[in-house]
């Protein structure tokens, strides 16, 4: 158990999450990808804190921030999904293309 091992696991979680977020058609599944990505960030923050700077509290504060970000992401994501769905009855990213340039 060392920093490198933790970071490789965190990297794996981030990549899997990224893959999911990029490939999923459904907005809800896309959000699951994002959650997984942030999951990796949490693990990375904990590892950095523990193995590099355990005396400070920066790592802990970062985890608090990421966890809050996850909650906000979920809430905002579902609110937007609900709004889009109410307006247009779609729940797929490919269909919601207003922002496409």
């Amino acid at each position: 158990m060392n920093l490198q091992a933790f970071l490789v696991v965190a990297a794996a979680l981030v990549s899997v999450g990224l893959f999911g977020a990029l490939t999923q058609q459904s907005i809800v599944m896309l959000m699951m990808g994002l959650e997984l990505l942030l999951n990796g960030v949490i693990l990375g923050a904990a590892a950095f804190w523990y193995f590099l700077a355990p005396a400070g509290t920066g790592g802990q504060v970062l985890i608090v921030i990421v966890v809050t970000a996850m909650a906000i992401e979920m809430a905002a994501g579902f609110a937007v999904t609900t709004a889009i769905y109410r307006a247009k009855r779609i729940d797929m990213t490919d269909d919601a293309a207003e922002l496409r340039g």
Partner: protein
Amino acid sequence: MTTALFVVLAVTAVVAGALVFRVDSMARATFLLLLSFLAVAGLVLMTGLQYLGVVIVLMMVIEMVVMAVFMIMYMMNPAGLMPMSMFHNTRGAAVIAATTFVALAGGALLVDWPVRGGAPAPDLTMALGQSLMSGQMLTMMTLGVTLFATIVGTVVLAAGRGRYDRLGDELDAPESDDRDRGGVGR
């Protein structure tokens, strides 16, 4: 012992995370994601961050249950009885994800990390609390305001009928026209 635990938790976290996008059933996907979170929470607990580890468990269980509800609300075929592919742009994404992994993992293994400086505080929870309430006060306040803004924003976005619909343009209706009324108020 510690190493074995670490390996088990690490493998669980990654495999469950990957399976999220492989299974057909949305309910299973959601709870696989939860499993991945729980494994990460276990890893966080291994670093001694007891409070944060348990908070992650608490939050993620609630979050995933809520997610399951929305999932079933909006997804076609949530139980996965009809296998179907819900991917787009798979190849590009795979390349991007693989590159990211190689870059991150390579960085993790190749960088010459500094030696560990200092020792953890005896009571980490207390240390976090004191930090949030003094040095990191601004962070805490920002988070609080952001969360509040999120609550207001998401409710406005998601609600189908606001108070002007329920109580009239002047908000002066003695009672709302809801079919089923809540416990208090109009």
